[in-house]
């Protein structure tokens, strides 16, 4: 089913990088030529407390802001969202639209028969994807969980390709900045940091890529088409 807009809600726990993921998703979609907006939930989040962020992607300019109350896609970053109700909405899938998609970072099936029956009645597909385990395998750190989730998202809903995802990740970690001092020591310190940064980016990119491929073949097996029509704008270099 083609939509004009995909609204994505990302419940997780503070520290998991759901906010970073939202920004990368929107930046990647923008690079691909879609209209895109992202924002975090507006609270005093802290580690392990419920946190939520949102991204909106579409083929028309997007005015809508704030919480996504009626999502097309829900990305559950932590099993506590479901098992312990660490979510801003109860149940976590409240408001999900027909033919929507839920990606859950879990190896186990966490949904009750009641949940499943309801989601089935709406034609919602559920993808259990162990993103944290996957991140540890691919990048050697669970910190890359959000990268795995970003890759899995676009693998499932299509529309935004690997090149754009890479641009989104680079835009997040390679921000331009002005070093006004210009002393040798400062430069070398920056260089060392930079090398570390490049390694980090490479690991993140690999994780996202691998997750993308995996999710993409799952989506094919489920007969899921691209969520959006082709982008309305040409790819634009984001400065």
């Amino acid at each position: 089913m083609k939509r004009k807009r995909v609204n994505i809600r990302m419940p997780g726990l503070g520290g998991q990088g759901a906010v970073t993921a939202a920004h990368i998703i929107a930046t990647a979609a923008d690079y691909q030529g879609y209209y895109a907006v992202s924002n975090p939930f507006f609270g005093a989040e802290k580690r392990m407390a419920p946190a939520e962020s949102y991204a909106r992607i579409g083929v028309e300019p997007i005015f809508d802001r704030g919480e996504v109350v009626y999502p097309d896609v829900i990305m559950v970053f932590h099993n506590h969202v479901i098992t312990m109700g660490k979510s801003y909405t109860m149940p976590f899938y409240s408001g999900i639209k027909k033919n929507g998609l839920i990606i859950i970072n879990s190896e186990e099936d966490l949904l009750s028969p009641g949940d499943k029956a309801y989601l089935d009645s709406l034609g919602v597909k559920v993808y259990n994807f162990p993103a944290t385990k996957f991140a540890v395998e691919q990048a050697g750190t669970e910190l890359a969980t959000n990268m795995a989730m970003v890759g899995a998202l676009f693998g499932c809903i299509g529309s935004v390709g690997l090149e754009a995802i890479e641009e989104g990740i680079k835009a997040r970690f390679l921000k331009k900045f002005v070093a006004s001092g210009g002393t040798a020591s400062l430069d070398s310190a920056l260089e060392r940091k930079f090398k570390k940064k490049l390694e980090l980016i490479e690991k993140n990119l690999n994780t996202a890529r691998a997750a993308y491929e995996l999710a993409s073949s799952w989506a094919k097996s489920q007969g899921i088409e691209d969520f959006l029509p082709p982008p309305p704008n040409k790819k634009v270099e984001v400065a």
Partner: protein
Amino acid sequence: MSNVSTQEVQYNKSGQRIVSPDYLLFEAPREKFFMTGSEAVKEAVRRASVDASVSYPITPQSEAAHLIGELWVEGYVGVYFRGESEFGVMSEVAGCALAGARTITTTSGPGTLRAFENFPMWAGTRIPVQLVLMARGVNAPLSIQPDNLEVGFLLDTGCMIWYAENAQDLFDMILAGFVVAEHPSVHVPVITVVDGFFVSHTREAIMLPPDDIALPPYNPYKAPMPVIDLEAPPGRFLRDPFVMKSNYISYATHASWQFEVRAAIERSRPFAKHYLRGLVEEFGNPDADIVFVAAGTAASQAKEAVRLLKDEEGIDAKVVKLKTIRPFPYDELRAAVKNAKYIFVPEFNVAGWLEREVRKALYKYSDAEIIGAPRVAGGMTMPAEVIVSEVLSNLRVK
């Protein structure tokens, strides 16, 4: 004869080429960036030849204040320091401005309230300070989330109040704000409002002119009031020598001066109209008889509702987005609603201050039913679906 330009190229203190406000806002080529509203504040200040900024952290404006500090490190802002409280900040920026500096600061919610005494003081002192207000709920119970009740409190402080809808509006308004506020026939403060989080923390596409050009610096010697001169005693620290006396001359001075401040806001209209490309903006079918009058994020949500109403119900509607609240765009609003049968005023506060403004402006000018809804507060989102259901339930009753 070759065409020899006699115009000298001038640079500001940061080494940026000085260009006219019209060139910076309308003519310079723009490039696309993807950033948050807070980052848009930084990019506007970078191009604004700002002399001074004072900051104090409060959610959700902390990031914007912090980013202005980064600009100071990069050499784009003359003076930057942290005040001891919001009251301190708003007093200190007044000092900077009285001394002839182009000055900007930011605050939110409880910070606005704590600093409040200073806003009418700014206006009465006729300083063209710019405050970027990232609106947030005011207590209690505590909310750190978007809610613009505080804007209702500010309406009669004598400051101009402009309302930006998104990061692009905010960038353009900050630059235009200095130009209009500093105009010798205006010369009052401007408060540039956005909804906290909905704009400050939202990342979106924005078109920016190059960063090696900037606004002409503020020239305090064109101001209608003298700047502080510490070298010619007695230093002129106060602009109100009459107030120490209780007599009719001091009362009349106060009253006439207060009227003059409001008159100055009225005189800003043609300049604001030019630099903001109009005081209102319309979206949707211009002939629709269902009209949303809104500012900021409420206008964004209403635009989504206009689309939903058309796509799902086949109903035509339009949005009249107000870009300025002070001065209030009376003529523009009256013209925009002349076909209206229903006027909805969606708002992010419990009081409905914009509904009051709209009712006042349209009294005896419109027969439309004015409905102050939907209204959400305390951080709630206003989904377009909620606006649509509000419209449908009103139409069904009739």
